[in-house]
């Protein structure tokens, strides 16, 4: 029960946190009219994943392992590209905002409309298929007399949605400038994790090399199925056993994007500086 709950929580967090930031972003920038489009994207991705999962589970055809990993990996890397674009857009915006200004943002967001929808799609669709297959396996188990796995997984997803909602509430309370700065920072770390995850998927599919050369393996002290490893994986995609290629990709991404982001956001800042973001970053990943 607990184990299945944690899987549901982990898979749910991976999608829900990004969606909650997107929602907060639209609300903060006075673009509530785009919310239906965003929820539409979420619904489409969820629906397609579930339907596709059902088809693969109960239908005559399954998906080859390489194909499944290649989908997850490719979608992850596309998602990273979009999130990165959004991060820089936010950084640029934050810089031009006065801390207390209820600014009606310009047309730049209109251009971002499609991107927001696609991001919502990818946030859910990326892991949607794997989660759907997992849920359908739970449904199959229900028919053989045990509903615990399905209930556990559903509870986990529900908790992840609540957590995402709480985060949204917290984010919306921030003034606009801080909101951009902090959610941007958080997104940098999330995107780096998604990139690392995508790299690992592509390594498993045999598209990228180096699956077995590990940079570190702390799974002995941080069991991957523990609740804290689950949270670390769900939020930042931290894996206790990380390959060199993953580590290199993660480090390269964070060092470049974070530097540019911090410079853009806090550079030439007219407002008082918030706490140094670097401290938060290291705390979040340690």
């Amino acid at each position, binding site marked *: 029960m607990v184990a299945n709950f944690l*899987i549901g929580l982990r*898979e749910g967090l991976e999608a829900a946190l990004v969606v909650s930031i997107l929602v907060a972003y639209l609300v903060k920038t006075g673009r509530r009219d785009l919310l239906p489009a965003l929820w539409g994207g979420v619904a489409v991705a969820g629906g397609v994943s579930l339907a596709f999962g059902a088809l693969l589970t109960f239908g005559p055809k*399954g*998906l*080859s392992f*390489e194909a499944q990993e290649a989908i997850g990996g490719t979608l992850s890397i596309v998602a990273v590209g979009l999130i990165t674009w959004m991060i820089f857009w936010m950084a640029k915006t934050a810089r031009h905002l006065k801390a207390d200004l209820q600014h009606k943002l310009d047309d730049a967001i209109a251009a971002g409309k499609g991107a927001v*929808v696609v991001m919502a799609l990818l946030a859910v*669709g990326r892991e949607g298929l794997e989660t759907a297959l997992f849920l359908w396996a739970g449904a199959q188990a229900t028919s053989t007399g045990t509903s615990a796995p399905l209930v556990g997984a559903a509870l986990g997803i529900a908790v992840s949605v609540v957590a995402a909602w709480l985060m949204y509430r917290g984010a919306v309370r921030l003034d606009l400038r801080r909101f951009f700065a902090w959610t941007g920072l958080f997104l940098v770390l999330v995107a780096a994790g998604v990139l690392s995850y995508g790299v690992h998927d592509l390594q498993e599919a045999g598209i990228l090399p180096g699956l077995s050369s590990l940079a570190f393996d702390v799974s002995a002290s941080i069991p991957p199925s523990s609740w804290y490893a689950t949270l670390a994986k769900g939020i930042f995609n931290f894996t206790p056993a990380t390959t060199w290629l993953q580590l290199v990709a993660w480090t390269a991404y964070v060092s470049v994007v974070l530097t540019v982001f911090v410079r853009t956001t806090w550079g030439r800042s007219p407002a008082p500086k918030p706490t140094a973001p670097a401290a938060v970053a290291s705390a979040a990943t340690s």
Partner: protein
Amino acid sequence: MSRSRVGALALVALVLPLAACVDNDPGPAASGAPERALTVSSTQDACDVSSATAPSGTLTFAVTNDGSDVTEFYLLGEDGLRVVSEVENIGPGLTRDLVVQVRPGTYYTACKPGMVGDGIRAEFTVTDSGEAVGPTGDAAEQLAAAEDQYVAYVKDQVGALIAGTQEFADAYKAGDDEKARELYAATRVHWERVEPVAESFGDLDPLTDAREADLEDGQTWSGWHYIEKDLWPPLAADNGGTEYVPLTDAERTKAADDLVGWTQDLVDQVNDPAFTFEAFQISNGAKELLDEVATGKVTGEEEIWSHTDLWDFQANVDGARLAYEVLEDVVEEADPDLAATLTERFAALEGLLAEHGSVEEGFTSYDELTAQQVKELSTAVDALSEPLSRLTAVVTGV
């Protein structure tokens, strides 16, 4: 981006992989044969697979987590590193299926309760069921199509070769050396493109294409290079100190008629309805052509008197590229990385060659290339040679 376009993109992204499906229903096992539908029970300290062997083809492992911790199940290759297939997130009480197409060989099964470490492993043997396991069921058809295409190409080239050789021989016999020198390299191109085929007919290759330096004791020299030396007579200094004696008219006529005769032999053999050239011969041939380039053309030894090595060079590369192209679909499916590498390196080498001319326009004389240019060509040939040597394994593996 419009919403409908976004939706369409997303659907494509999610539905595209339908092309990469495998049958969920494993084929029926012959009576008494080991099953293709296997069950696995994973617990904290055990990984019980219902059978340690299975026949090649599509296998299904129904993996049930009978433990209290999340587990994963892997099918690993013989080295214990390559992941052939895996299924993750098997929560307690769940059963998840792993469906995989496997070729005969040794594998390892592994359960990873708690998702930690190397897992609980066991050797797993896949016996040969005689069923073809390939990327698709029509690999055999693709190979047959490749063979047909290649044979058509060979026939086309030897057709051009016999016509050109006849013209060349006539000019040479008539004493029109200038015309013969002009036709020499352009005609040989057709020979060099399909040389692996000529080599498969035993004596034809040494009779028509032997180089003076490679002659064995007692072997009479004949063929293209014998005439080449007569058309581009060397100075005594380049001829081991002896004065080169031009061929007499009678010798010329014999040399030219022999060459046409042997070329006609080649044409007849290739056009024989029974002539086939199998996929592995095509892929080996591609490699041989590159080796030819590396050992003969790069060194400038092939056309030591005429210095028309770049024509031969280009022709060998043409032939190798065509051999690869007819097999490309097969390679694309079996090893997309290799296909991408080959495509890229062929392009690199051809680009380099194009800097020195073309078959139609003529090439730079090989003795005018700088050491640096020769080295560049040689490096590009080596870069192509290595992946090309893996072609046969891929082609015969499907």
